[in-house]
């Protein structure tokens, strides 16, 4: 994600918060298997 944003021209790309967005859903096991989580990003043009 960060690399793709930089390739598009954005700079100061950062991942800044993480969320266990799938906790308690029926995809929780798959989410844990692949390390799926919600992530906040910021980037500047």
């Amino acid at each position, binding site marked *: *994600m960060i*690399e*793709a*944003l930089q*390739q*598009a*021209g*954005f700079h100061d790309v950062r*991942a*800044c*918060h993480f*969320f*266990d*967005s*799938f*906790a*308690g*859903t*029926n*995809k929780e096991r*798959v989410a844990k*298997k*692949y*390390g*799926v*989580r*919600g*992530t*906040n*990003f*910021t*980037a*500047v*043009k």
Partner: protein
Amino acid sequence: MAIACPVGFDVARLKDEVRQTYSAVAREPDGEFHFHRGPEYAARLLGYDLAELKSLPDTATAPFAGVGNPFLMDPLPDGASVLDVGSGAGMDCLLAARRVGKQGSVVGVDMTDEMLERARAGAREAGLPQVRFEKGDINRLPLEAQSIDVVISNGVFNLSPDKGGLFRELYRVVKPGGRLQFADITLEAELSEAARNDIDLWTG
């Protein structure tokens, strides 16, 4: 996270599945889905202010299915122009509209008619005329170049099979010095080829 979809991937089918899934969420937010919805989820797992969400129309908050919280980053400036990419039922747009005030503007772009109907009704009910919603493909935004101060989005970019193209399109519409602050799902493990071809994993 995969940046491009596999060769031979049925992009048209993916878009149709995404549209069907989120149309179903708009019609029946309390239905059975493999992701959370609604304001209680947003407050409990994502750090939204439940009291503020309860002050918004249920039509906008009930189908909320974001995965993070763009409002935990830099504050939206008074008078800013904001774009919400894949705005769904409009909850984040209404929150953004309150932050930028009446001198600002918020446009939400979504491809799902049922979500757009909910979003427009929610904006009317909330009394926020600085918000508008446009139907469109997020890879071909119906916006002029360099017209946006801040792009927000929540759990949508992962649904695009062409993220490089999407990010170039966002770069086009953002003003110099403008910014993105968005949430999306990420993976720590590399997906197998079979998993990358699994439409259910993309649409969820």
